[in-house]
Every structure is written in structure tokens, then in C-alpha cells.
């Protein structure tokens, strides 16, 4: 099959979710009361606004992730030809890794890998 058929999977997935939600919203019983649509917080009304997160911890990891993700993506083609290319590829990736290893080491030493 050609790659166009990917769209098929997209459509089928969307159809599954959308169809089910539409079906459900038509047929399911409903009731309304003033408390229903309020945020659930262990059974007591919420105090303050729900915006609560300013946590640098999470975001630093997302940052590091992005950079390592680029790296991963670039290693894939290398991995595919490693077997055939042999030494040249090995040396090149060694350099690549050493450079990035520094990055990891730096992050480690800077305590960027400690969640806070």
C-alpha cells in the first residue's frame, strides 16, 4: 500500500472517536444541576484559580528532551548504515557521541538533571 493510505488510519481513528462521542451525546441520559459542571476537587469547591504550575523542573526536561531528540533522529540513519560503512561511521558517531556526552555531563554537573 502506498503512504497515502496513512490518511486512512487517521480517518478511521477520527471516525471512531467522533462517532462514539456523537452517538454517546445523543443517546446518553443527561441531567443538569449547578454543581455538575464545576471543577472536581475532592468534593469541595475550588479555591483560587486553577492555574498553579510554574515548575521549572518539568520544563527543563522538556528542553533537554528536544535536544536529545534531534540527536536520536540523526543517529537513526547512521545506525542503518553502520553495518555497511564500518570504521568511518563508527569514528564519526564516536565524535558525535563524545560531543553530546559532554552536554549530558554538563547538564549532570549543573544539576539540571535533578528535578526540583
Amino acid at each position, binding site marked *: 500500500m502506498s*503512504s*497515502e493510505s*496513512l*490518511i486512512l488510519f487517521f480517518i478511521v481513528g477520527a471516525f471512531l472517536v467522533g462517532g462514539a462521542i456523537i452517538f454517546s451525546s445523543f443517546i446518553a441520559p443527561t441531567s443538569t444541576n449547578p454543581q455538575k459542571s464545576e471543577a472536581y476537587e475532592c468534593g469541595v469547591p475550588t479555591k483560587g*484559580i*486553577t*492555574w498553579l*504550575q*510554574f*515548575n*521549572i523542573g*518539568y*520544563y*527543563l526536561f*522538556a*528542553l*533537554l*528532551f*528536544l*535536544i536529545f*531528540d*534531534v*540527536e*536520536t*533522529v*540523526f543517529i*537513526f*540513519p*547512521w*545506525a*542503518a*548504515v*553502520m553495518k*555497511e*560503512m564500518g570504521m*568511518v*561511521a563508527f569514528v*564519526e558517531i564516536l*565524535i*558525535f557521541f563524545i*560531543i*553530546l556526552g*559532554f*552536554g549530558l555531563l*554538563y*547538564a549532570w554537573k*549543573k*544539576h*539540571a538533571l535533578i528535578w526540583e
Partner: protein
Amino acid sequence: MTISEIIFYLFSATIIFFSILTVTSRRILRAAVYLLFVLVSTAGLYFMLNYHFLAAVQLTLYAGGIVVLIIFSILLTSHISQKFEPVGIKKQIFSAIAMAAGAILSIMVILNYGFNSLITVADNPTMNTIGYGLLNYGKNGYALPFEVISILLLAAMFASIVIAKKDKKTN
């Protein structure tokens, strides 16, 4: 009309439509999600052009990486009920007109230039081609940029850690 044409129009329409929404939506996280759709559709275009690797990279890095990071930073810096104030109508109209003019001009140029608009070789670069290209020092080889990328990433990592952690120390 063939299926691929339909799909192409679908993708193009998605791209244009959601691009517009991205730059006009008043809720920031929605804008990010619209951007995601744009990027995914672009990946779809790459798939259609048989550049599978590129499409996958687009998905992984753009959609799965950059957008996630953007969403993260939105989660950190804005609240669900926050909306942008509408941009001044004057500014909006002026920019829109300018952009439309530019776009029309460019499109005219494109249409008037006779591009060779048919694919002659059904080519689908395999991983091996890409791998060789990436690790080769000779002609059509990109070993140097490949290594430079690693330096760039290292620099980016240093920079972002330094920037992101700097304030902590001073406080």
C-alpha cells in the same frame, strides 16, 4: 481526480486554514494546537512526496518535540482563561493587506515561471542513501554538517541550561 489529489488538497487546505488560525487565535494554547495540525499536515505532504524519513523527522522533531516544548512553556506561563486582547484593527488590516499583496505577487511569479512540473524518477530515498549521504565526506556528503549539528546541539544545550538555571542562583 485521484485519491492523491484529494489528499493533497486536503492537506493544503488544512495547512492554510490552520496557519491562519494559528496567527489569529486569541487563545494561546489553541494556537499551539493549530500549529501542530499545520506541522502534521506538512509531514503528510512529505509523505506524499515519498520523503518518508523527512516526514518522520518532521513528526518527531516538529510535532513531537518543538510543539511539546511550546505547549510546555504555555502551560507554564499562561492560564486557561487568558485571552489576548484583540490586535488593533488598523494594524491588522494593514498587515493583512501587505501580506496579501506580497502573497499575490509571489504567486503570480510562481505561476508565470514555467516549472518542470512532473516527476520523472520515482525515487524514494532509502535509509541507506540517507545514511551514506549523511556520513560521507565526498560530493553530496554531509558529514561535516552532521558533526556541526552535534556542536550546535551542545551549544544549544549549554545555552538553554545556563539561561534556564541562571535566575535560580541569583535569587
